[in-house]
């Protein structure tokens, strides 16, 4: 479908441009805002592939949660001095050579295996029983096939919770 291709390239350009802006900004807060733009583009790609639930998660979690976390971390770190220094170190040439080599390598293998990278059509919803939408499919699979990983996820969240509280309260009584 023509519209899908146009939208894909729009999102792809948006992702690449925003990602470049993210890593080149001198002010970290601007970087974080460009990161939001990058993540919105990725959500758009998910939506194009018919993964509505993933797109929603991308926006709610990554943009609404994790980027806010980044901003809080930026606030916690005194950046005024660091931001005035040179961003690129004297190893620029070594880094450039390694990056070019890696890109060439990656490009070569992508070129070799390009046939296997054909984008499959999103699974037609009707194929999986009475389930109709992407979110329903995820609910169905999550609570049958991937039940254990789902329950383990809650343990992981518990660990994250406890870890954050313990680290933040490292000095008891200190305000």
């Amino acid at each position, binding site marked *: 479908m023509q*519209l*899908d291709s146009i*939208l894909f390239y729009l999102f792809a350009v948006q992702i690449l441009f925003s990602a470049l802006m993210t890593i080149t900004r001198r002010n970290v807060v601007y970087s974080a805002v460009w990161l939001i733009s990058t993540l919105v583009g990725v959500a758009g790609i998910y*939506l*194009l592939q*018919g993964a*509505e*639930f993933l797109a*929603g*998660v991308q926006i*709610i*979690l990554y943009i*609404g*949660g*994790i980027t*806010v*976390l980044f901003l*809080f*971390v930026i*606030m*916690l770190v*005194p*950046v*005024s001095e660091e931001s005035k220094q040179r961003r690129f170190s004297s190893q620029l040439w070594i880094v450039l050579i390694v990056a070019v080599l890696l890109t060439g390598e990656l490009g070569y293998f992508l070129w070799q295996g390009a046939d296997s990278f054909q984008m499959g059509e999103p699974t037609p919803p009707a194929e999986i029983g*009475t*389930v109709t*939408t992407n*979110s*329903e499919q*995820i*609910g*169905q699979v*999550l*609570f049958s096939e991937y*039940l254990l990983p*789902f*329950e383990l*996820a*809650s*343990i992981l*969240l*518990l660990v*994250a*919770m*406890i870890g*954050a*509280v313990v680290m*933040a*309260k490292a000095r008891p009584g200190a*305000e």
Partner: protein
Amino acid sequence: MPRGYIPILIFLVLAFAFPVVTILVAKLVRPSAPGKTKLEAYECGIPSDADTRGRYSIRFYLVAILFVVFDVETIFLIPWAIQYNVLGLFGLIEMLVFLAILIVGYIWIFRQGALKWV
């Protein structure tokens, strides 16, 4: 892209276009006369005596990371809620186990006083 998202796309495009167009038009129309006085804090403000990028309390970070944790938890509720009729009692028990583990953590956090804002 599923059909139903076209209106959202149009909405997004308009939402982005509005501030861009407004700022550009304002830039074309307005007179340009920058002055030092204009940059001062006006009657309703006091001059700042420190850098804006001071250090903040770690509590902001704590609240943010706890928000992310419970955000993930809520995300997991959505596919369950959508498929509630199909999953039935088994799904309900699974979700209760999932929630119980997190509620234990929540009670622990609460008793640690991590949510208290002193």
